[in-house]
Structure formats: C-alpha cells, structure tokens
C-alpha cells in the first residue's frame, strides 16, 4: 500500500500544505481525497460529515476539486470548452456558451486569473494552463481545492501571483490543500504543514515554528542540497554552436528569432525564461525535431543542421525532454525497454539490427542502482513509478554512453530534494569531465547555481546575458518578464 495511518485535519479557509519526497504517497493521498482511488481503511470527514467517494464526481459534489500535476486539458478545445466539459450549461437541447463565458469571466476577474475563454488551449503556456485548471475547478463550485505541485512549472513572479490568488481564495472561505516539495514556498503560503514520509504522516507543524531545514529533515532525514557549482571547468573547445537560429509557426509567426550561442566542453549554458517564450522550440530545434527557418547548428565543428534526430543522438547528444511522460517515456513499456528508447542504435541496447535484451536489462539495473531509481523490478512499466523516479531513470539513461552534449530541459522538475541533489551531482561530475550542457529550467536557483553562462529568453529572442555568480533570483525573474531593462553586459 502507498499510504497507511494517514491523519490530516484541514481547517476551512486554510491553506494546508502537504510535503514529502517523491513516492512518499502525496499523490496517492490526493487521489483518495478526490475519489480517484478508494482507501482500504479509514474515514474521510467533510464539514464533520463522514463521506465516501466512489469517483471524482462524488468529491466534486461535496465541493472538493483537484488541479493535477499533469494538466488534464484537451489541447484542441478552447478554454471555454475545456471548462464546461462534463458540466455543460444547457439551454433546451443546445448549449448555453454565452452564460458559461460570462461566468468564466466573472470567476477570472474575481480571483485575478486573467483567463481568456476563447483561446485554444494548445496556444497557451504552462502557467496559463494551470490557471485554466484552477478556474475549471472553481467553475464546478469547489470550496476545497487540491493543488498537486502547482508551482513546479512556474517562475517566481508567477508563483507570487499564484500565492496571491490562493490568498484571495482563502479570504473567500475556500480551503486549499497544497502539495509540494518546495519548502520555501510551503513556508511562505501555508497556514499549516503536514509532512509525509513513506506513506504515512510524520508531523503537522505551523510554518512559524519550523525552518526549511527542519522540514527537509522531517521529509528525508538528510541535509538540504544546494546546486552550487562554482569552480569553473569551462574549456575553450567549442562543442555546440548555434548560429542565427530561427523557427517559425506554419502561419509564418516567429517563434525563435536569431538565436546564437556557443557551449564549450565543460560548460553549462542556462536559458532562463518564463515558460512559453520559445524554450521548448529551441530544444526541439537543436534536437532536429523541428525544422529551422534560418540558422545553423554545429556539433564539434561539424554542421548538423540537416541531420536527423537519430543522427544527432548518435553523434553524442543526450536529451532530457521537457515533458517526460509524453516525450521521455513509453509509459506502458517496462523500464528496460525505456532504457532503449532514444538509444536504439547504441550499445549495450542493440547488437546490429537486433535488440540486445540482456545487455539492455543489465544496463537498466546499473542505472536503477546508480541513480537510485526506486522500483521493485526493471520489469514494471514506467507508469507505475512516481514522477521523480521516472525522471531519475531518464536522467540516468541520457547520461549513459558518455554524451558530449546534454540538452536538459527541466532535469529536476517534480523531483524531490534527495534526487535533485543526486542529479545535480551527476551533472557536475559529467561537466567536470567535459560534458557540455544546455540547461533549460524554471527553477531559478538551479539555473543560477548550475550555469556557467546564463542567458534570458523572451518572446523567442535571447535578450540578455546574466552573470550567474552575481545575479539574484529576483533580478533574474524580472529580467525574464522583460520588466526592468537587463542590467548586465
């Protein structure tokens, strides 16, 4: 079982945080509260009344709504359509979109969510999608909101906005259950904090009474890691050279314009930016997954602009994709098959045209051990691992076979402090032995701590170079939003 003897009491109108490591059982607990899983024992009381949920519909009926870690929105529908989906306002036999639109605007204004009901969800950035998710839950009349790792995808300004929204909700008597492992944020926003470890509640504390370090120790029993990596290992050997790179949408809009940068052996180049400013496109362009409108990409002095993704991978580019579930894993395949993914042409996975099952299995075991992937077996499907362990598997896989360049998009997103430290250590070690890294992250501490060179991307252009040794997260955050002219070089 993923949970046992969990005791949590949440007061109405409180922001109650639940913290714990990946795989500690936070998400399982939330699924139980939201009716997606049935508990084997124990009771749930809402407003003093015992309830049992057989489906999310039951939870919604008593005013409990959930915002998932992975958004559950239909890309090809508008915000309006997504919000009303499953709860459509009827007018006779037809749908009353006018009324729904008015209500969405009303809710959006009341909580400052700034959501336009008529745009397609596929055109929205991650932050916007999250606000749509929150709005969707409020639209259903939820009075208790469960937010599963809501800040994992946001930059500090957006986090502040979210917290402002949460405070607004709170003042209206809405209860918020906030799941996170970002301790500073939890301390900043929560009225009460419950710590979960290995499926059970360890402690419930008030934020005023504890420090982040106390919380971390409650969570993992070890010290807080930092991403500091100060001694420079940058060499003068150019590994990846991107020159004048541009990407356009099919209708001719510039998504990336005149992007140029160089990564040397032993160098980490960080790209900071609010999500949706072209980072995803940049990564895909460098990986050969997206056609370039202009510019060139060269690896070790060889022009690879027209090479396929596979040839680029074979040439020594490792790739940690932004969306691990969609791009990084075959969720219904066993772990050892996931070890092969992206390395279908490389030893020890293959032997000529044949899959080397034994080799792949052995190397999967190595990764599981070296990167502390918590799993009972390498035969289980990737979907049965918690998010952090999935990420550790991907990082381990992409660091295998001595890549010369690593394109790392959000390498520690959704990963707990212990695993985060392990991933950082691995990155540092590889960097020391000459790995060139392109680091895209929404975690500003990570960007500042890991990068040798830090660039800011805004609306598809690199707008500023920042010195990671001197910049603060707040300064970086304002540079990312384009507020405050870039104070650097």
């Amino acid at each position, binding site marked *: 079982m993923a949970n046992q003897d969990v005791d949590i009491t949440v007061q109405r109108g409180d922001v109650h945080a639940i913290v714990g490591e990946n795989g500690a059982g936070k998400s399982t607990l939330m699924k139980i509260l939201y009716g997606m899983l049935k508990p084997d024992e124990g009771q749930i009381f809402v407003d003093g009344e015992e309830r049992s949920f057989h489906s999310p519909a039951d939870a919604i009926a008593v005013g409990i709504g959930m915002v998932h870690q992975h958004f559950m929105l239909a890309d090809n529908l508008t915000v309006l359509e997504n919000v009303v989906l499953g709860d459509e306002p009827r007018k006779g036999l037809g749908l009353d979109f006018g009324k729904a639109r008015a209500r969405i605007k009303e809710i959006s204004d009341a909580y400052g969510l700034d959501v336009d009901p008529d745009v397609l969800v596929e055109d929205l950035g991650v932050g916007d999608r999250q606000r749509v998710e929150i709005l969707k839950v409020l639209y259903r009349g939820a009075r208790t909101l469960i937010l599963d790792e809501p800040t994992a995808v946001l930059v500090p300004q957006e986090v502040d906005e979210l917290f402002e929204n949460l405070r607004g909700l709170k003042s209206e008597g809405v209860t918020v259950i906030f799941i996170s492992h970002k301790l500073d944020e939890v301390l900043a926003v929560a009225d009460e904090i419950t710590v979960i470890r290995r499926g059970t509640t360890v402690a419930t504390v008030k934020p005023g009474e504890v420090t982040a370090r106390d919380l971390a120790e409650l969570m993992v029993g070890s010290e807080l890691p930092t991403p500091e990596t100060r001694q420079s290992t940058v060499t003068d050997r150019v590994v990846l050279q991107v020159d004048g790179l541009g990407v356009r949408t099919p209708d001719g809009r510039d998504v990336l314009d005149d992007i140029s940068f160089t990564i040397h052996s032993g160098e980490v180049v960080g790209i900071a930016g609010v999500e949706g400013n072209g980072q995803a496109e940049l990564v895909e362009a460098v990986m050969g997954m997206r056609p370039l409108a202009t510019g060139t990409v060269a690896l070790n002095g060889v022009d690879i602009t027209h090479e396929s993704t596979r040839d680029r991978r074979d040439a020594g580019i490792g790739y940690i994709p932004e969306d691990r579930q969609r791009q990084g894993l075959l969720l219904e395949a066993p772990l050892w098959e996931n070890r092969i993914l992206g390395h279908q042409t490389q030893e020890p996975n293959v032997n000529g045209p044949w899959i080397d099952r034994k080799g792949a299995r052995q190397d999967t075991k190595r990764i599981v051990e070296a990167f502390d992937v918590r799993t*009972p077996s*390498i035969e289980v499907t990737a979907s049965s691992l918690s998010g952090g362990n999935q990420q550790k598997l991907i990082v381990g896989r992409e660091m295998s076979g001595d890549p010369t360049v690593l394109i790392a998009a959000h390498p520690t997103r959704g990963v707990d402090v212990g695993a985060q430290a392990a991933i950082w250590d691995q990155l540092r070690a590889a960097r020391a032995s000459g790995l060139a890294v392109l680091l895209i992250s929404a975690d500003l501490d990570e960007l500042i701590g890991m990068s040798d060179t830090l660039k800011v991307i805004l609306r598809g252009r690199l707008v500023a170079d920042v010195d990671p040794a001197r910049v603060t997260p707040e300064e970086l955050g304002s540079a990312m939003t384009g507020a405050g002219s870039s104070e650097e070089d």
Partner: protein
Amino acid sequence: MAARFELRRIGLALAAPLLAVAFAALLTSIVLLIAGDSPSGALTTLVDAAKRPRIQVQILNLATLYYLSAIAVAIGFRMNLFNIGVDGQYRLAALLAAEVGGVISLPAPLHVTVILLTAIAVGAAWAGIAGLLKVTRGVSEVISTIMLNTIATALGAWLLTEHFSVPVAGSNNIGTKPIAASGQVPGISLIPDAHKSKVFGLIFLAVIAGVGYSVLLNRTRFGFDLRATGRSETAAVASGVNVKRMVLITMLLSGAVAGLVGMPQLLGASYSYSLDFPTGIGFTGIAIALLGRNNPIGIALGALLWGFLDASSVALDLEGISKEIVVIMQGTIVLSVVIAYELVRRYGIAQEQRRVSRDLSAGAPAGEPEGAPA
C-alpha cells in the same frame, strides 16, 4: 520478482479474451433462447461437427487464411495504423498473382515463388498508396484504405472480365487461366481419416508469418521503433524515430503480408481467381487481431476459434438452428473483447502502481519509528 510480474501480466492478458468469449456466449444464449432454440444444443452441435475430420481440415484451412490476414492487420495495429484495407489488398494481390501464375510456366519451386512474390508486391503496393497519402498529404489511413477497398473491387472486376477471364468449364463462372501443376502447392494429409480433403500446403506460410512477426517486433531495432511509435508518437520522435518513414514501411509490410492471404486458397484449392474466390477475409482479420491482442499466439487461437465457428456452423442448419447465430457470436466477441481489454488494461495499470508502491514501502529500511507500520 521479475517472474512474478511476468506471470501477472500473462494472467491479465488471458483474462480479457476469456471474459469476452464468456460474455459473448451469454449473449448468444439469450438470442438462442429468444429464437426458441436450446443454447446447449447449439453448442453440442458445433462441437460434434468439429469432431469430424473433414471439418477439422476446414477449420485449419480457414484459420490459415484468417491468421495471415490478422497478422497483416496486427502489424499496423502495433503502431496505431489501422489498415482496414487488407481485404482489397489480398483480393487484388490474389487476382494478379493468379493471372501471372496462369500465364507463365516455370519449374515447380520457381513458379510458386514468382506467384508468391507477385502477391506480396501487389499487396504492398496497394497498401503503399495509403501509406504515401498519409505521409505526404496527411490523409488518414482509415479513410484511404476503405476507399482503396472499393477501388480494388472495381479494378479487380474490370481486369477479370475485360482482360483475364476464361470461362470455367461447366458453369457460368469466369476466372483467370488455371495455374499449371508446377505452380500448385499440394495439400498435406495432416488429419487422419479426412479422406480426400487435405490441409493447405501453404499453412507453413502462416507459421512463418507468425514467427517472423514475433521476431521482427520483439527482437529487432526496427520492431522497437515500430512499437515505440505505436505507444507514444511524441516519445518516438524524441528518441529519433523518423515517423513518416515508419508509417510508409509499416504500411508496405502490412500490405505484403496481406498479399499472401489468398495464396493458400489459390495455390492449394482454387488454382484460379474466379468470381467465387473468398471475400471479406480482410475484415475477419481485423476482428481476430483485436481478439488475439496483436499477439502471434493469441491471433492463432483467435483464428482457430473463428475457423471452428465458421466451419462447424454448417451443422447448425441441419439441426434447424439458423447458422447466422455464429455471426452474432463473432460480433459480440469482438465488441466485448474491445471493452474487456480496456477494463483489464486499466485494472492492470492501477494494480501495478499499487504493487510497486507497496513493494517499495515494504522494502523500506527499518528503524524509523515514524515510517514503520504499526
């Protein structure tokens, strides 16, 4: 531990088709009862019929055709390509292969080889049209293969009546020029006491197709790319798979196997493509691929079940039970199988997630008062 997970998976894999067949049996029984027939009587009749050697030969022969068809469909299914056009592919392939086989004369092994290669080429080319349309113009292969089926019917009729036909002796039927003995594949006396009826010699084609399918998909890089694309196109692209190329190759492969579907019949019994050449096997293949869960052994069982139902159903008429009851049964099997798989799949994922977290918490190091279970 690995073995335990493997065992569970097999158990789950079996649960769905058994559930579906049981459910279909229940529905069919209700239909029989409404019609005033005895369900157990109908079943006994079917089973008794299958005890007859001649019917057994027929079951095997039908299953051979169904198996090839289902493998052709399954190749596409494994990467989420719906080749609905196996029917048109095999009919056109059989027609052209029959014509080529009838016109040329070569020494025995060569003659058969040329006929088989013609069938493979025609099947692949016909499916390849759908593949090309999808890759270059984004046309859904579902639509294009269905339309190509209709075109194949018209094209085949035109070719047969206008160009290839010779009258079949003693009937109004027309067909291609019969294939000479050097191009025929003699049957095998696999079932004792079946007198003159023999099992198709080309049953070994089905075996080869099954083994080849299994090896290609599970053991080769190409198969891995194919399955990866089927499971998650986005992940496949990120892993370096050229999806367009895979679509085209997969359609060609699927069509090539589809081209073989008519061969056991053509070279083992008909020797000529005439108006009464079996049709509709392509659609049966879709049902069997679904039932067999794209697994080569599952498909074999499905093909045998279908062959059994089809071959034995003749006996129902003699008992005064409409043999169309078998079609109802096949239909309900397919419908319930789709539902049962989805249910079992979801159950399996949830079960595994639970088991993994349970195993992990059970394996947690002791000596932590807060973490230890009471």
